[in-house]
């Protein structure tokens, strides 16, 4: 049960994977199937309605869409990896701290961070640092850090102290305890935070178009501004499929990395 609050506060995007493994198969293959159906549906829709008009064809062509998908995935994955590289060590450091004040501060900052609208962060940063790709990355990393730091901290500190005690009693060093006991046991909670960040990155990367960082948000905005619904729909379906796919992939990694005993 101690995992529950961590899942709650990070507003995890999909249900935590079921331990019993009964819904596993349906769940594991449900998402890819949904993506396939959505993309096929989109393709059929676009084919049936015929050749795109002159304005639509600006966006509705393979090279343009491929470039936007590429930009979008790059942006969100780069941000998520940076977050993992910074936030997991930071979370471990924080969990080492004995002081209540340090932990309280991190949780407090985490709560305020969660309350801050993503669009506010990204636009404020753009006003301060200038528009473009690097600003978008900074905003995404900034936004994703807190849930992963907090979940790492929670994941490590929720481990039963007697387990650590027995590891110590067996003569394990601090490093060994961290690597062999604490991290594996904290993996589910850490990954839950990372998964949230990854999916969130895809969403926030959509807003990155406002600060000229490309991605599929551009397709949405183009469709909206030129009032071409087919363009907007294409952008929306594709970006949703990316988000679902990332979530599915992260869930798969979660299952693979989870220690067998847990």
């Amino acid at each position, binding site marked *: 049960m101690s995992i529950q609050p961590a899942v709650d506060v990070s507003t995890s995007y999909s249900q935590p994977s079921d331990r019993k493994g009964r819904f596993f198969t349906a769940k594991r293959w449900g998402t890819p199937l949904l993506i396939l159906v959505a993309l096929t549906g989109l393709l059929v829709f676009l084919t049936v309605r015929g050749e795109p008009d002159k304005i639509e064809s600006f966006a509705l062509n393979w090279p343009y869409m491929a470039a936007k998908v590429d930009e979008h995935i790059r942006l969100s994955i780069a941000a998520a990896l940076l977050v993992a590289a910074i936030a997991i060590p930071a979370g471990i450091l924080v969990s080492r701290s004995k002081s209540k004040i340090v932990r309280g501060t991190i949780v407090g900052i985490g709560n305020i961070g969660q309350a801050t609208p993503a669009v506010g962060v990204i*636009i404020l940063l753009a006003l301060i640092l200038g528009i473009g790709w690097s600003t978008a990355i900074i905003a995404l990393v900034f936004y994703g850090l807190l849930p992963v730091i907090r979940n790492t901290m929670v994941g490590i500190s929720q481990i039963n102290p007697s387990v650590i005690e027995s590891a110590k009693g067996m003569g394990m060093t601090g490093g060994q305890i961290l690597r062999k006991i604490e991290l594996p046991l904290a993996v589910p909670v850490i990954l839950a935070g990372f998964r949230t960040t990854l999916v969130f990155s895809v969403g926030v990367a959509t807003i990155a178009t*406002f600060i000229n960082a490309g991605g599929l948000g551009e397709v949405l905005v183009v469709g909206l501004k030129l009032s071409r619904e087919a363009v907007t729909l294409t*952008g929306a379906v594709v970006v*949703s499929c990316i988000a679902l796919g990332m979530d599915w992939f992260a869930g798969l990694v979660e299952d693979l990395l989870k220690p067998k005993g847990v």
Partner: protein
Amino acid sequence: MDYDLSLVLPFLIKKADEILELSTEHVLVVLISLVIASIIGVGTGLLVWEKPVARSAAVATAGVILTIPSMALLTILIPIMGLGWASTVFALSIYSLLPIVRNTVVGLREVDPAVIESARGMGMSKVAVLMKIQFPIAWPVILTGLRVAAQLSVGIAAIAAYVAGPGMGAYIFKGLSMLGAANALNFALTGTVVIVIIALSFDAVFILINRLTTSRGIRV
């Protein structure tokens, strides 16, 4: 970028009326969506919590909806529901469903089976057990779901300003559109800070509601 702090106060005073109006709108749109989402979400939770297939289908569907980036959902809603309030309320309501449905289901299921059994043994009907025993015990968990949904909605409502939705997000986008102008940062900063304040206030209100409405026996 140079930023003159002494100009913040005059800006806030000059815009006080507008800020008040926009933040009222922001709170209002979140409240309306939250009411709609909790009727649908808690209702769904009450109906499906006992049925494994329906339960996982409901939670999974809500999960898929939440995964859709909010910009994408908002932009496809425009041709259907137009600019402004309707699209915003609709989007916020369906984004709020996941935390509400999930927490309702989790809360109802976590009730100790022994408690349910003794209530049944006393002759209470299934519905009576659900409403008089399970629901009050699950209430704090359900309330947490509502709280998460509120936080989420406050943030998404900021993006909705792009599709002419109500609320403080308008200030953030105004800041962006004035990029380089003297007041750009003032607008964006005011918008962001006020939204943070709104989100934290919602949190505080939910903590208060939790204190006041949790059944005495399970209050910690």
